[in-house]
């Protein structure tokens, strides 16, 4: 075993592969940081350059872009409040709030260390337990997916800030948004008003850029000529690095989030975004230290989300390499890369090309370390941006948002939709309705509805099918407890609204 990994390291560290990994990671970070270029799009854009490369070099380049993309989403999220990737929305909510409190440097370092920790954790988890993760992931059928999404939605109470009523209002609005588009079971068009833009549903990135980033700019614009609140002096590496005690304090989150991330990442219907939200939700639900801080800059939420979305890469790769099933959009692109080079990812790959499989395992370790070095070096540079006056800064963010919304499908309609959502977000903020539950519901709503209806089709319409497996029963019970418990504990919350 050690010998195999020794060889794999030797291959991966060949100069051409090392260069490929660095370039891939840099490109991925850029794609991840820009809201208009998703990680999967980033991988596709360089896919055509890999035709002429050696298979190993091509794959480590693309894996580099994949891991870089997931990591890069956090940068713009914390600094600008724009989610570079859907999976970094919780990072926007908590990380950007921290940045506005002048803790941008600490937030950046925590995000980076947690990202890399999550990534490495999942690679090691995957090396040790590939068959275990794959088997467990396969036990998720429609009923289990449904239970998982309900557990995710039940977190609303933890994200609602003061008023649970407003939290649920926001959540149900998100669920409504999720019903727009082509019905996944009957193919019927719902709430599309005959337009083509809405046939595919409300684009998730469009909605969250509008709701989160642009609405915030509108809020801030009400106070003219002020300096950016997040402006900080960067003190020195040693002062800025989070203390070890921080991680010890939140040890449960640090262990639980990568496990959630790895498993959810291995589910073909879920992925990094749902992983991040679930881990974030779990952290909010069980927060011992400062539960009230969630939504207003809780470092624990940031840690959970970043651990989990990076850990999803390991889960996704596990199911890809062991069964040939892509666990996410981006790994689906990697299937194409394998095929270009005459390989089929699947159960036979390990016996046919062990060099490739072990090579990818080791490359993922190396890439995570490279990402730590690259992003770590750049943090100081990124923080310089915070010195701009907010009037200049916000204009730049607005441009990024507009280009991002337009860039997803090169669609002006999407751009318009983004502005509609920014108005909605603005009024939600004005009336104290939290935005996070709405986005959570938009992320989970589609999967929740479809898996419920699939489960009912499979059970012949009997709702007992939803709780017949131990996994779904346990998950649903957890959801029930987390909805009911706060009602019993603090009945005042409902009254206060």
């Amino acid at each position, binding site marked *: 075993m050690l010998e195999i990994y020794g060889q794999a390291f030797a291959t991966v560290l060949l100069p051409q592969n090392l260069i490929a990994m660095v370039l891939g990671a840099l490109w991925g970070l850029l794609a991840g940081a820009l809201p208009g270029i998703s990680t999967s799009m980033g991988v596709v854009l360089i896919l055509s350059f890999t035709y002429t490369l050696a298979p190993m070099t091509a794959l480590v380049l693309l894996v580099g872009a994949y891991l870089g993309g997931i990591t890069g989403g956090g940068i713009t999220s914390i600094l600008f409040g724009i989610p570079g990737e859907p999976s970094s929305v919780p990072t926007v909510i908590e990380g950007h709030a921290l940045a506005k409190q002048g803790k941008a440097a600490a937030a950046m370092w925590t995000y980076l260390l947690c990202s890399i920790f999550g990534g490495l954790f999942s690679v090691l988890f995957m090396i040790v337990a590939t068959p275990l993760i794959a088997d467990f992931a396969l036990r998720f*059928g429609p009923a289990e997916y449904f239970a998982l999404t309900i557990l995710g939605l039940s977190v609303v109470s933890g994200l609602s800030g003061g008023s649970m009523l407003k939290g649920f209002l926001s959540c149900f609005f998100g669920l409504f948004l999720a019903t727009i588009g082509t019905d996944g079971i009957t193919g019927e068009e719902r709430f599309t008003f005959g337009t083509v833009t809405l046939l595919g549903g409300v684009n998730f990135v469009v909605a969250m850029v509008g709701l989160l980033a642009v609405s915030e700019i509108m809020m801030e614009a009400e106070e003219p000529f002020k300096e950016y609140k997040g402006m900080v002096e960067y003190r020195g590496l040693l002062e800025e690095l989070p203390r070890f005690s921080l991680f010890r304090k939140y040890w449960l989150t640090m262990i639980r989030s990568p496990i959630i991330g790895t498993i959810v990442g291995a589910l*073909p219907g879920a992925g990094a975004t749902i992983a991040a939200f679930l881990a974030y939700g779990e952290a909010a639900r069980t927060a011992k230290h400062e539960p009230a801080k969630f939504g207003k800059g809780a470092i624990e939420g940031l840690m959970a989300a970043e651990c989990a979305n990076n850990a999803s890469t390991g889960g996704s790769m596990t199911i890809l390499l062991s069964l040939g*099933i892509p666990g996410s959009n981006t790994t689906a692109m990697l299937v194409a890369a394998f095929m270009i080079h*005459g390989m089929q990812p699947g*159960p036979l790959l390990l016996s046919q090309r062990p060099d490739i499989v072990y090579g990818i395992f080791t490359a993922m370790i190396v890439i995570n370390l490279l990402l730590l070095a690259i992003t770590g070096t750049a943090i100081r540079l990124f923080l310089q941006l915070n010195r701009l006056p907010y009037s200049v800064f916000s204009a730049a963010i607005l441009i990024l948002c507009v280009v991002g919304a337009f860039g997803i499908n090169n669609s002006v309609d999407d751009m318009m939709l983004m502005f509609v959502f920014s108005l909605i977000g603005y009024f939600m903020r004005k009336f104290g309705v939290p935005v996070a539950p709405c986005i959570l519901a938009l992320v989970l709503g589609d999967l929740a509805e479809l898996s419920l209806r*699939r489960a009912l*089709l*499979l059970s012949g319409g009997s709702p007992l099918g939803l709780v017949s497996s131990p996994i779904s029963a346990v998950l649903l019970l957890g959801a029930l407890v987390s909805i009911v418990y706060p009602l019993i504990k603090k009945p005042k919350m409902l009254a206060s609204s």
Partner: protein
Amino acid sequence: MNRTLCFALAGLLAFALGGGPCAGNVAAADYPERAIEVVVPFGAGGGSDTAARAVVEGMKPLLKHGVVVTNMPGGGATKGMLHVSQQPADGYTVLAVTTSHLIDAVKPKTRAHILNDFDPLCRIQWDTSGVIVSGDSKFKTLEELIDYGKKNPKMLKFAGTSPGGWSEIQTVAFFKTAGVQVTFVPFDSGAEIKAAILGGHIHGAVEELAETLPLIQAGKLRALCVIMDKRHPALPDVPSSVECGLNYTHGLMRAWAVKKGTPPERQKFLLEVIRKALENPTYVKYIKENHLDVRPGYLGPQETRKYWEEEIAFFAEVLKDLGYVK
């Protein structure tokens, strides 16, 4: 006001007005004078996208100004088709057509019609599907599966992707030919379907073979039959649908088309370039590795149109049965 400046501006204006159309006329003579855009109406990385990109790789050396792929996913495959139908018919925008466009042509709500609004260039691929169940399924042969299905109407649950689309049509139509009523459960992607079959959550799927082959060869999945007139070279032990006594050989097709009214000489030029690209060694290797060469895919423009008409007639019948069209 400075008189000289005025004159200079007027001169410049006259030059711009006069020179503009002039330059245009000269360049219009030789087509193509800029890059050709291939619109793939699906997201990047999927089957249609990979296929289109493989052809485009072969076209690149033949076109001086290049060729680019644009992914335009959304609304099934409607958005991309609509886009191409709204571009000028000048041969600079090509649509990667798939079977879903033929199905759209049957539906009353269709926004652009593949037969009326487009001219086919050629069919490039004709894929093969198989009836797939889990490796540890109780069904060992197609006969057993059909027997069970006949005795238990609607109890046989099969997964697919597009409700009212190709996936549902091929699943339902195949089983209808065998006299079985099946329950179709739509999922979002091929990956989810495979996971659901492997996990024992659903009986099986009627799916294109290329993607499932590695799992079949590893024994995780089992093919009960391949849907064509002969056996599949990669699965010599699996009977074909015709062998099993079922007169059903439909398969997913991929073709290229331009907007109707594109000048014939430009269509001819494009067809020539595509034909050469299909002989490019990279493309030949790609279709071999993905088993897309199992049955001949290429059809010329007239044959493609005829084939489309026949398929559309068939789809109309199936969709009527399913209640999607009245």
